């Protein structure tokens, strides 16, 4: 009898515990770890760093959006605009807004006024980091509260790309911006699935679900976006269950190690960041194409991929990253051939090899990459004399033409035009170009094709022009592609994004209203 009573008591005592798993609600708070010291500017038109880009994509919408999980411009779909049309010449675009879309808080409905205000703000150098993207815009006007018309001065390769949920395309609340002024960058108002909650400097940014989100209330109710610059600590915090989603390093060892953590999925996704070396074709010794070709021949891309990791990187094939609209693989890229490199150097008057000074950043991922290149060049008798400087200094000095060879890694909007224009058009040449950006080679061999392709309306002809441009740049050895490095994040296996993650222009997983814990 006593035993029975004890058993009964035990059952009663443990029943809630035993039933709990069946009744447990899935988690609704998401904790994300990101490798950064602090958030920068939350005004989406100033979100240039990975940490800022990842999070503004959760708070704002564009007129259109990349299909979640994709960076294919052909898969751009409706967002704030439910439909759109363009004139026959491609210069006038009309967007019809969805009705009843609410901004966060009590900032009301998204109207054509907000769209016009946002796009004009994004196009202005003093209020946006992306103003140059909008160079072709003639006018943006509200036809009625739910219709926006954009008129272009000239054709652009992808108008939808400019008004998508990326860079300058994010729509903000006009009322909030005017009311908050300079403090808007600290407390922004958008219409996305998550709204700004609070920020603790150097610690975290808290977001809350936008219950009135037009696609439905988000299943995740709170996001804690934690700034953890130390890789070791972030990984420990993830392993300890304090993070559900963790920014990863594109490094095979990291990927292999993280895959061993129980209940973990490592996502590797687009866009790949293409690393290239540009040669300053105006300065000695790179004014001689044979020296440029010798360096190109000394580069061993398969080795670079083995070093970084097969799962997270791939060989660069062109001076435009793979998968971008207009990318071509067959450009006559020189294969690794150390003997030919040495012969070319001798021909160019350097029979005993040569030493090249190069300014480079101390940022670990970039520094280790150039050290591998340094070892490769040494085999061909080329000594790379690295002048390692702090990262901000590096960016300034390479723009002052102080380094004859520049290593640069970047991802851009996935249309060949942007990459070709910024890196290989003479207008973008650093220091001397009409609109200097990041052309460190001073090459101008493909200017005509790049310009013609930008305004070409015949898609076939446009692709052909981009292909010619890439071939000319490679043949002239303006630069040499190295490797493309993909993005890596680790997550709990029960965290379901609600879509298949193949790519994200915001450089981190998009958290949508459908993202949930299973």
């Amino acid at each position: 009898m006593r035993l029975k009573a004890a058993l009964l008591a035990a059952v009663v005592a443990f029943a809630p515990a035993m039933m709990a798993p069946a009744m447990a609600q899935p988690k609704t708070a998401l904790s994300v770890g990101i490798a950064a010291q602090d958030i920068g500017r939350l005004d989406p038109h100033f979100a240039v760093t990975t940490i800022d880009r990842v999070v503004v994509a959760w708070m704002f919408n564009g007129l259109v959006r990349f299909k979640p999980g994709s960076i294919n411009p052909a898969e751009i779909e409706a967002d704030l605009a439910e439909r759109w049309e363009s004139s026959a010449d491609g210069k006038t675009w009309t967007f019809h807004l969805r009705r009843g879309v609410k901004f966060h808080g009590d900032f009301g409905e998204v109207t054509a006024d907000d769209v016009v205000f946002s796009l004009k703000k994004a196009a202005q150098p003093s209020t946006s980091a992306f103003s140059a993207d909008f160079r072709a815009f003639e006018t943006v006007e509200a036809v009625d509260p739910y219709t926006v018309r954009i008129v272009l001065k000239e054709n652009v390769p992808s108008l939808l790309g400019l008004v998508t949920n990326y860079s300058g395309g994010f729509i903000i609340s006009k009322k909030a911006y005017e009311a908050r002024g300079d403090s808007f960058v600290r407390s922004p108002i958008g219409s996305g699935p998550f709204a700004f909650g609070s920020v603790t400097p150097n610690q975290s940014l808290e977001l809350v679900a936008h219950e009135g989100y037009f696609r439905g209330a988000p299943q995740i109710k709170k996001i804690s976006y934690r700034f953890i610059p130390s890789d070791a600590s972030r990984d420990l915090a993830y392993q300890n269950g304090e993070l559900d989603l963790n920014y990863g390093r594109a490094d095979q060892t990291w990927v292999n190690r993280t895959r061993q953590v129980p209940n973990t999925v490592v996502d590797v996704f687009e866009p790949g960041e293409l690393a290239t070396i540009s040669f300053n074709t105006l300065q000695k010794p790179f004014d001689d194409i044979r020296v440029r070709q010798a360096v190109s021949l000394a580069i061993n891309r398969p080795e670079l991929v083995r070093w970084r990791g097969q799962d997270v990187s791939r060989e660069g094939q062109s001076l435009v990253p793979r998968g971008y609209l207009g990318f071509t693989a067959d450009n006559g890229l020189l294969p690794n051939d150390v003997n030919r490199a040495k012969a070319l150097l001798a021909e160019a008057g350097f029979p005993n090899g040569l030493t090249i000074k190069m300014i480079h950043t101390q940022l670990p991922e970039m520094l280790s990459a150039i050290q591998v290149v340094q070892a490769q060049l040494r085999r061909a008798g080329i000594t790379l004399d690295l002048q390692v400087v702090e990262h901000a200094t590096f960016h300034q000095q390479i723009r002052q033409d102080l380094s004859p060879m520049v290593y640069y890694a970047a991802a851009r909007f996935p249309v060949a035009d942007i990459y070709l224009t910024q890196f290989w058009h003479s207008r973008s040449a650093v220091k001397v170009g009409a609109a200097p950006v990041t052309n460190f080679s001073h090459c101008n061999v493909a200017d005509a094709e790049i310009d013609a392709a930008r305004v070409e309306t015949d898609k076939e002809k446009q692709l052909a022009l981009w292909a010619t441009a890439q071939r000319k740049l490679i043949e002239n050895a303006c630069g040499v592609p190295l490797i493309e490095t993909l993005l890596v994040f680790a997550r709990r296996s029960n965290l379901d994004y609600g879509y298949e993650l193949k790519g994200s222009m915001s450089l981190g997983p998009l958290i949508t209203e459908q993202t949930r814990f299973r």
Partner: protein
Amino acid sequence: MIGFILRRLIAAIPTLIAVLTVVFLIVRVIPGDPALVILGDQATPEAIAALHTRLGLDRPLWEQYFAFLGRSLSGDFGTSLVTNRAIVSEVAAVLPHTLDLTGASMVIGVVIGVPLGIWAALHRNRAIDIAARLLSLVGLSFPVFVSGVFLLLAFALHWKVFPVIGNARLDDFPDRIHKLILPAITLGLVMSAYVTRVTRSAMLGVLAEDFIRTARAKGIPWRRVVWKHGLRNALIPVVTVVGLYVGILIGNSVLTEIVFNRPGLGKIIVGALNQRDYTMLQGLMVIYCFLIVVVNLITDLTYGLIDPRVKA
């Protein structure tokens, strides 16, 4: 006493102004442009110029300097160039964390270091002394980012007693203490290593003095000789080292802050430097400099307490 403190604080003003001037100039002399950091690598020159105008960086240097000096002296440090948040509130948000960590490490350092140093000195060249010297050598040579990660592996991942992310809530006292323990031990052990060494050598020096021999000859018990005659005299260099070290800790706990994910002054300083956040750096340096002045003042006052010959 109050007069002394006031005089010292007033005497610190020229130091503060000198620091302000040097910081103002240095951050502008080093290469790197905050506008480029803010606008990113696709920035066009016109966008950079527009931002320079907006941030006031296009104005003549002297004009920027005097505007900054005027504002600083009235206690207004402005807003961060990068995040646009008020500098005073940024600092106020992290300062309690920094003071917690500095204070706790100091206590650990002194509580372990002073007795260990005395003990070692009293047993010179015997096992205890050698062990203490060896331990302090280990403490000095272990970088914080190694010892910190070991502590996290043991106490956070294995035994699960502490969290990895140590961002304590300031209004929650138990939470604040809980998250302070591991980082304070990490830093405190390093400090105790310094304190042990200084205490030991100071104590050895004092114990070899004539007055100690005299005191012993007079028949004063050994314990009393050590505590009253020896230690009091040996403490002066110890206080100096502790004072200097606390000053260093306030701004230089950055590695500990990063490993344990704690907010703190050191972390903000490094971040502002990386981002070329001129205004933030200037503000931080003024506040940092002021804290150093206060620490030095406290150190000086402590001298007077230990040794009446050092008159305030």
